[in-house]
């Protein structure tokens, strides 16, 4: 008996009970669709977060004041971290040869006022080098000047510009930030959110000015760009060493690299995706039970048919094959429908929330089909064996149902 004949006979068996067949197919379809959709969401979240960090550039070191890692021993001297200062940033630039650009960053919020218009903005105090480090582009004017770290000038984010100067050229205009007056020298191209900071809603001013405005000595962080062909880790270690020396031997600065951040997020979100897939897999398992149930009913309903198959010379193995194939066809049909439904609802989500990338991972698509087919086979084994084990005499003696 060849496979095609077997297939035809097995699928013929499904035709008789459209509703029952349809329901169990639906069960598998829902299971597979939920696997696809949930893993798509997990994978989408992963891509979203890693995408955010990927804009940082792969050769960036981020130095943050304070140590977040727990140390093994209780320190004998005070652990109050030193501020990360302008001078620290300068020292890193001068003493670590692999580092080609350094941008100190101070952050605060203030209200910005231009004429009658006013709004809250995030103020970033930095230097001209931020432009290159963060790959920012200017719509008009220029970025912060190279040689005047305490000038009273500012650069506007796209939305800030739109809202403060909706109908006139902002270049050369005055803006009041807190109690200070600044002259607008440039506008940055729209960029969107990056690491939780909407660069369109930001006003950049020279770093020294910012420290004075916010009355601080310490920086929020220091961004350092390493030569593309230099070893990132070595540069990081060198920078930390410089800072440790300047901070009286204390390691009170945390170093982040895009890699380390990405790896951590990838791990967390990978686990999240796997957990979601696991939850969805439960529904697939339940669908498998549904198939087993349908097949068991089918076996008991078709007792006479099974008896007949044996009487006309079907072997044990052939009867098993007929019912296994029937179950596999049920499950795989459900799998295919579920796959289509899952991908379609993924598309729909993408339409509704364009910011959030929904992405069905390739492995999930393949796995859904393989798993649904094997669900059919695994949950079909019991009914199929029951069918094959039927005593043909008893099966044939059954009166018409």
């Amino acid at each position, binding site marked *: *008996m*060849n496979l095609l*004949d077997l297939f035809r*006979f097995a699928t*013929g*068996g499904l*035709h*008789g009970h459209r509703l029952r067949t349809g329901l169990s197919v639906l069960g598998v379809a829902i299971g597979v669709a939920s696997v696809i959709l949930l893993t798509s969401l997990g994978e989408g979240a992963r891509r979203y977060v890693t995408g955010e960090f990927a804009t940082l550039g792969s050769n960036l070191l981020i130095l943050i004041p304070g140590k977040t890692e727990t140390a093994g021993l209780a320190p004998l001297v005070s652990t109050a971290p030193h501020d990360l200062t302008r001078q620290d940033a300068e020292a890193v630039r001068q003493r670590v040869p692999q580092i080609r650009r350094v941008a100190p960053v101070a952050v605060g919020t203030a209200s910005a006022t231009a004429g009658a218009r006013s709004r809250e903005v995030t103020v970033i105090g930095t230097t001209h080098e931020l432009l290159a480090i963060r790959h920012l582009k200017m719509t008009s004017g220029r970025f912060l000047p190279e040689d005047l770290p305490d000038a009273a000038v500012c650069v506007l984010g796209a939305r800030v510009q739109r809202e403060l100067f909706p109908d006139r050229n902002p270049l050369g205009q005055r803006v009041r930030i807190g109690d200070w007056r600044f002259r607008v020298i440039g506008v940055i191209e729209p960029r969107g959110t990056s690491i939780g900071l909407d660069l369109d809603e930001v006003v950049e001013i020279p770093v020294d000015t910012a420290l004075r405005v916010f009355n601080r000595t310490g920086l929020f962080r220091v961004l350092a760009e390493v030569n593309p062909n230099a070893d990132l880790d070595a540069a990081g270690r060198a920078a930390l060493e410089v800072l440790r020396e300047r901070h009286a031997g204390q390691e009170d600065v945390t170093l982040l690299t895009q890699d380390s951040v990405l790896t951590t997020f990838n791990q967390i979100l990978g686990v999240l995706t796997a957990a979601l897939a696991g939850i969805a897999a439960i529904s697939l398992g339940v669908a498998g039970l549904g198939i087993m149930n349908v097949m068991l009913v089918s076996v008991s309903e078709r007792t*006479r*048919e099974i*008896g*007949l*198959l*044996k*009487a*006309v*010379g*079907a*072997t*044990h*193995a*052939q009867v098993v094959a007929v019912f296994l194939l029937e179950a596999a066809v049920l499950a795989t049909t459900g799998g295919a429908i579920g796959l289509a439904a899952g991908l379609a609802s993924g598309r729909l989500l993408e339409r509704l929330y364009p910011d959030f990338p929904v992405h069905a991972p390739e492995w999930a698509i393949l796995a859904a089909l393989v798993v649904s087919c094997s669900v059919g086979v695994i949950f079909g084994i019991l009914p199929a064996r029951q069918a094959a084990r039927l005593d*043909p*005499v008893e099966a*044939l*003696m059954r*009166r*018409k149902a």
Partner: protein
Amino acid sequence: MIQLQGIERVYEVGASPVRALRGVNLSIARGDYVSIMGPSGSGKSTLLHILGCLDRPTAGSYRLAGQETADLPEAELSRVRRHQIGFIFQFFHLIPRLTAAGNIELPMVFAGIPAEERRERARRSLEVVGLTARAGHRPDQLSGGEQQRVAIARAVVMEPAVLLADEPTGNLDSVSGSEVVRLIERMNTDGLTLIVVTHDPQVGGRARRCIRLADGLVVEDTEPPSRRRSAAPAPEVT
């Protein structure tokens, strides 16, 4: 063709074993026409199932065409059923979702016969039973007599040596019943060994040899004198 020796069949039902057959000795020649009769519970169906290799004897020897079947593995028994034995049943046992032709093709499907040959052989079988026009009909679109004729076509399509009929007319009116009987008798004339289990004396009486069972034993084994093959017209079957 068939040699039974000391065939016993014991069913374990609850605590007390039921002895359906208690030492049956029987020898049936190739091309013979035998009826097996007896009251219900006499073991005639059990005997038929054992003859058809659907059931195994608890003890004794069953040689079919010279081959001992009692110790054949299950897969071999399937092969014996497929190639040596044709079955027809009281309730026809057609598969409802398959057409007449599809039902007839079924044994050939499991025998792995290619589709084209199957169609041709099914077509010829339908011709033999006079149902060429009904090839595409499903069982529920056929009358009882037609269904049984499809079942006969299915039973003989593999060209078996033995045709076993279990109450073949039990579910038919007298006209289609006698049609069916005439059909299988014609096949017997062409050399098919025919064994009919029935409790209807008028059907059983037509056989060349009549075996009567009671309580699991052969109590009578005769060639009825009334039987005159090829002579007087067949008596009406009721």
